[in-house]
């Protein structure tokens, strides 16, 4: 088979969503953002809501998400994406509004907005990409960084308290990995809370189904945040190749952040 | 005509609402008015005062240092504002609780037993309307019918049945100022 044969329309086996623009992603090869963008675009396309969808991009690696989605978009200040989403949804209750944030944006500088948006029960969809690190600024500690994990600002590994020796044992240091998703699941304002991953095709399909549910809930409902966390990688700042990064994710991130639904239809899932 | 008035007393005596009724009555009289309260933590239980200006012309400064009339309802306010009445101006006070009487001789000084008269009327809430009546006797800048209109505009609908009682209190104030 020649290249000419492969690109014939009848040989088409896969194409990108029509709702992704042709602008090449600036994301590092192997990064999860591209896959997550793709499945969100596919969901919007499948639901036929592209003419009434408004996205909110954060500050972080996905700051320019607006360049890749062919829907209306606003770029928010660092941490304020869900305040922006609230603003739009309150004045356009019939539009479909989603925010897209990383761990630093959603769970550090934007924690206040995250908790209060969830507590008000805004009828929006929140996508939360958790890779345990600040990607855009060069690999500093995130609120979700694992204990012991080395970052630019925890070069000897994140330590919740100072280590033994020199008499400093037990003094507060970098704190603990923040389980923001479990935290907001306890709030009555959240309707659907789930944690997914995109490191292999099976999980990509599950994550897409979850995102679809998070959008459908918004379309069919009047209130309640629909929250999808996606545990992702950062091979560049984790300083690994993509395959290794995904392995490391399975071995280290998932035990700390187990996958699955946490809250469905407003009810916490029994474990 | 421009009348610059300070009304001062304790929070809870109806100082601010008396000022509001006076200002609304001024509007009904076709005047320009302003109502400027002291605001802040001292509003809670401490002293409260409000500057009301009623004028034929656009009101310049709503905040003043000298007044045509001071309506004084406690000792602290008397201490603070006696010196700020313009020469030839009026000072009206309720002697209830006043231990150091005003001493100026270049102003008109009058009293009204507001607390006592309100108690006689069987309703402590009309206290500030008795004081307003006394003020209007001394400074007849607004007609009674406009005071009634002013009440109608400044009181919520559900309190409108109390307007006759309030107007009666105004009259009591007018009859008893000394």
């Amino acid at each position, binding site marked *: 088979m020649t290249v000419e044969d492969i690109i014939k329309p009848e040989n088409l086996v896969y194409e990108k969503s029509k709702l992704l*623009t042709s602008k090449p992603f600036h994301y590092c090869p192997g990064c999860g953002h591209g896959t997550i963008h793709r499945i969100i675009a596919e969901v919007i396309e499948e639901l036929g809501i*592209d*003419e*009434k*969808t*408004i996205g*909110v991009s954060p500050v972080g690696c996905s*700051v*320019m998400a*607006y*360049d890749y*989605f*062919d*829907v*209306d*978009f*606003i*770029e*928010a*200040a660092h941490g*304020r994406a869900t*305040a*922006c*989403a*609230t*603003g*739009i949804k*309150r*004045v*356009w209750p019939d*539009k479909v509004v989603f925010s897209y944030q990383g761990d630093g944006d959603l769970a550090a500088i934007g924690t*206040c*907005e995250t*908790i*209060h948006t969830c507590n008000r029960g805004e009828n929006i969809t929140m996508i939360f990409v958790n890779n345990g690190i600040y990607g855009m600024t060069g690999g500093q500690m995130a609120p979700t960084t694992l204990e012991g994990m080395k970052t630019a600002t925890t070069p000897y590994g994140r330590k919740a308290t100072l280590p033994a020796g020199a008499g400093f044992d037990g003094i507060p240091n970098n704190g603990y990995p923040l389980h923001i998703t479990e935290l907001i699941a306890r709030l009555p304002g959240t309707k659907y809370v789930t944690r997914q991953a995109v490191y292999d095709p099976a999980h990509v399909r599950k994550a897409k189904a979850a995102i679809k549910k998070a959008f459908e809930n918004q379309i069919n409902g009047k209130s309640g945040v629909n929250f999808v966390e996606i545990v992702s990688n950062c091979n560049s700042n984790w300083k690994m190749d993509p395959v290794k990064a995904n392995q490391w994710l399975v071995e280290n991130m998932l035990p700390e952040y187990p996958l699955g639904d946490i809250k469905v239809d407003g009810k916490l899932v029994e474990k | 005509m421009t009348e610059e008035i300070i009304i001062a007393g304790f929070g809870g005596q109806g100082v601010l609402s008396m000022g*509001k009724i006076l*200002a*609304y009555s001024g*509007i009904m009289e076709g005047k*320009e*008015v*302003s*109502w*400027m*309260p002291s*605001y*802040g933590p001292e509003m809670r239980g401490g002293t409260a005062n409000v500057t009301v200006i009623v004028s034929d012309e656009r*009101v*310049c*400064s*709503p*905040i*003043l*240092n*000298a007044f045509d009339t001071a309506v004084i309802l406690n000792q602290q306010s008397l201490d603070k504002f006696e010196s700020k009445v313009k020469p030839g101006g009026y000072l009206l006070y309720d002697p209830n609780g006043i231990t150091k009487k005003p001493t100026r001789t270049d102003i008109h000084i009058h009293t009204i037993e507001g607390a006592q008269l309100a108690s006689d009327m069987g309703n402590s809430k009309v206290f500030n309307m008795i004081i307003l009546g006394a003020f209007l006797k001394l400074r007849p800048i607004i007609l009674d019918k406009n005071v009634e209109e002013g009440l109608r*505009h*400044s009181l919520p609908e559900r309190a409108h049945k109390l307007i006759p009682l309030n107007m009666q209190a105004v009259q009591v104030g007018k009859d008893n100022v000394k």
Partner: protein
Amino acid sequence: MGELKLMKGNEALAESAIRYGCDAYFGYPITPQSEVIEYLSEQNPYERTGMVVLQAESELAAINMVYAAGAAGKRVMTSSSSPGVCLKQEGIAYIAGAEVPCVYADVVRGGPGLGTIQPSQADYFQAVKGGGNGDYKNIVLAPASVQEMADFVALGFDLAFKYRMAVCILSDGAIGQMMEKVVLPEQKPRMTEEEIKAKYPWALTGRKRGTQHRVITSLDLDSNKMEEHNRHLQAKYKMVEENEVRYEEINCEDADYVFVAYGSSARIAQKSVQLGREQGLKLGLLRPITLFPYPTKAIENLINHGVKGFLSVELSCGQMIEDVRLACNGRVKAEHFGRVGGIIHTPEEVLEAMKKQIIGE
């Protein structure tokens, strides 16, 4: 003619927002402007006109709700007082960069820091010269009466949408807390979705298939494009300077000396003009209504007509005086007088300052 009422400045602002057909208010309580959100909440505007009123979790959240709802083509406003407006500067810079229309009121209190809850005009620099990051301007309207608190909502929204920028209503504790009579405008309908789509093609309303999607952002990593964007913003501000200067002159026709004052200071200085004229001094008052754009030409004209000196009267340690001096350009004397910390100058001391600092022996 609309309805005549006795209202506080803060209440008049809130009521006229409902009547203008404002779509949403996002705020956070702070003295001395909490009456705005309290009044709005009490009025049930959602039932009256469909206007959304939301108490946000912080001033930061509130201004970012304004940023996004404004980007969505709606008429949106917020209000706060000085320390709260500091927090809003982040959002205001984004609003400037992304060219989003909105109105925000700042009922100024004394600073720095937590300062005092009493009136002040010490946030002139913050409102007029910047506050957030980057080269930007907001249109700044300075109401001097309760009537103007009401009127400037409509004017503010008209200008905000005309130029796609933030309009600040720079008030203070005195104007916010005082009651005066006010003529309220008639109720206007809120704009429909069709009207918004037709009038504001830039607004985020969901893109039509086959058309370019819209992006509201203040970011561009391409330096050439960013410089071009900045040039575009400056050209817009220049247009505002050419077309939107507003001011009032009182007794300036024959004045030898002129007070320059805005907001509550202008009210006091007007009384000082009266007192001075009673003493035979030919005094006048120039009251800037827009602080950006500043009435620079009005000051130049007064000098051309023989005014020999200006006293800038502000509840600050001297901020607007810089603009007065720039306008004077060394041709005549210009000095500052002001009380701070929540103390309000009396008409008498303002007059004395004019005699001592400007008129001289």
